[in-house]
């Protein structure tokens, strides 16, 4: 369902970014990059003291002509950004939430690996396969 999935670290550099179809990768990268501003805005809007109560799921960040961009932030300020095809109107909010939840779970699994240094690019095959399963449905 997703066309592009990206995991951004706290310092706003990408830990993992993958998109299909692959020929438009640069466009998706740019979209993710611009969405970071929106994410930051949403985070700061919630207030500093409310970090605990802050909802992890940010919802639709911004829509474009062809795509919608959704965001999700973890408590450690790691951001998940997902770009979804606008033509895919059947996608509901709950589904997006569940997809982010799966992403978050896989991310924690990656974190649990002692050989993973936080800040490295994510090269876990399990994570890859999970993301693929999310994206394959589009094709």
């Amino acid at each position, binding site marked *: 369902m997703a066309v592009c999935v990206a995991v951004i670290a706290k310092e*706003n550099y990408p830990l993992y970014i993958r998109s299909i179809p692959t020929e438009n990768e640069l466009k998706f990268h740019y979209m993710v990059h611009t969405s970071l501003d929106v994410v930051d805005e949403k985070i700061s809007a919630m207030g500093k003291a409310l970090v605990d109560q802050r909802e992890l799921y940010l919802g639709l960040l911004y829509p474009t002509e062809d795509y919608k961009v959704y965001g999700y932030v973890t408590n450690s300020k790691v951001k998940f950004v997902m770009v979804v095809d606008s033509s895919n109107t059947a996608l509901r909010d709950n589904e997006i939430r569940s997809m982010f939840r799966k992403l978050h779970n896989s991310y924690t*699994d990656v*974190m*649990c*690996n*002692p*050989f993973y240094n936080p800040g490295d690019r994510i090269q876990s*095959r399990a994570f890859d396969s999970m993301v693929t399963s999310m994206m394959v449905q589009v094709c």
Partner: protein
Amino acid sequence: MEAAAGGGCGSGQPLLLSEGEQQCYSELFARCAGAAGGGPGSGPPEAARAVPGAVSAAAGPVADLFRASQLPAETLHQITELCGAKRVGYFGPTQFYIALKLIAAAQSGLPVRIESIKCELPLPRFMMSKTDAEIRFGNPAELHGTKVQIPYLITEKNTFKRMDDEDKQQETQSPTMSPLASPPSSPPHYQRVPLSHGYSKLRSSTEQMHPAPYEARQPLVQPEGPSSGAPGAKPPRHQASLIRSFSVEREPHDNNSNYPDEPWRITEEQREYYVNQFRSLQPDPSSFISGSVAKNFFTKSKLSIPELSYIWELSDADCDGALTLPEFCAAFHLIVARKNGYPLPEGLPPTLQPEYLQAAFPKPKRECSLFDSYSESMPANQQPRELNRMEKLSIKDMADFPVPAQDVTSDDKQEQNKTRLEQNKTRLALKSTADEALPKDMSEDPATKSGLLPPPPALPPRPCPSQISHHNVNSERSAQPKPPTQLPNYGDFRLQKQISKPRHRELQEFPQGHPQQSEQASEAEIHPQLNRAPSQAADSSPTKKDIPYSQPPSKPIRRKFRPENPATENQEPSSTVGGPASAATGKPHTAVQKQSSKQKKAIQTAIRKNKEANAVLARLNSELQQQLKEVHQERIALENQLEQLRPVTVL
């Protein structure tokens, strides 16, 4: 010998072949003769007839066939001479059949003599192919398990391929064998292959040899079950010796195309090793190893970080950042496989799943609990070491596998084993170098070693007394009319210590090499009697439990000793054991009671010493924990500083 052989071949001395043998031999002869272009020697083997001018098998295919039997070249030469082919200059049916029988005898570990073929022998086995075609060569009853392993011993000889085709076309003997035989044995067998490349260089060779006995053991267990009607002691022994003889010739082979699952099965030996390593990192086997500890440990394997990361991903099934024992075994196994050149699988193979591992090897957990019960602080290595010694002793003494046979025949042998084990332990304790805990052993051991009677019980340090008791318990369970209490058995071998001389011989052999002993100890797992493994679990599973975990490098040495042993061990042990066994039987019961009280005292002193050791180690542990906490705090402070210093990217 040759004269007799000539006489046997040429004159009217009948070569008794069973029906299966006749069929097999005639087929083989037909193949060899047919390959030569001559007419097949059909009909029943006419061993009694001299066959000048009759059909003869060409030397080429015959030589290939003999080579396929995996016997050493000299043995094959001997066989060729004995069967009279050299004398008459060709392989007639008579010579061929005699040669086949001799091959069977040699594969069974019997000496290559004409007399050997007079007795009932299993069919000779030829390493033709990777398939189960091999199995068809042998008797169905015998071929359970063990024989199946043989085909899996892949050697890359071209002749095999040729024979393969022929075999497949002609072999119809016991196709039903393969399904029975292959599943149980193939996994452990195949396991050998990955290790052959050597997790460390040394390890490679040993691994090959080691798995063999273990595999032999497993199939032995199985045959005992399914083939209860099968010939009793002999086939297992043959199988075991077969495996040993095969292991000599075995070559490392990477090809796992036929059995994609096999490299991912963990043999008993490996399992033991992994468990020991686990214990070295985390004394409590039912607990888990934290991520950082495991990371440090696995980093030593010199694999790249991404690969290690991937292996972790595969093996940490619950993704909790910690490895339980089965997860650890799976991870270790993957690392070993990777180091041996196996590509990492896409997913965790079913044989490495934690549930599978837990189900397949429940013993280690039980063993662990047993260990824990009587030795809280004892590092595991002490125990394994001792057990290894015990194993070594038994290997030396009794090369024959036949667990059932020996179990039934003598408690004495077990007791002898145990006495030998004790002796070994004393020696090994002196030599062992691995752990700090060792000094304790060593201090105890020399003291105990001096006097045979009282000290030895104290000797088998912490684990031993209880282990032995466990053994005894188990061996009792394993159905022998033993004296009811543990101690009597324990005492028995003390008595036998005094009695039996052969042990001294063994003792003298041991100083030759500590690692060798420890390695052979693992070989000892072949002998369920050995106990430890059986002690912990039902006899069916060959758990070793104690592989010296400090000794991966020395594993290859095991292999070298193995080939030397098979032939000799088969015969020597039976003879040596028979003597002392008879002598010992009389005494044990009377002296048992006297020994029991002494042993109790010895055990109590051992317990006290263990507790002291425990206290010391606990103190040490707490101090180290303190240091660890401090270091952690320092690390956190440093990380905080790093965070602050790291440049914040601005969009």
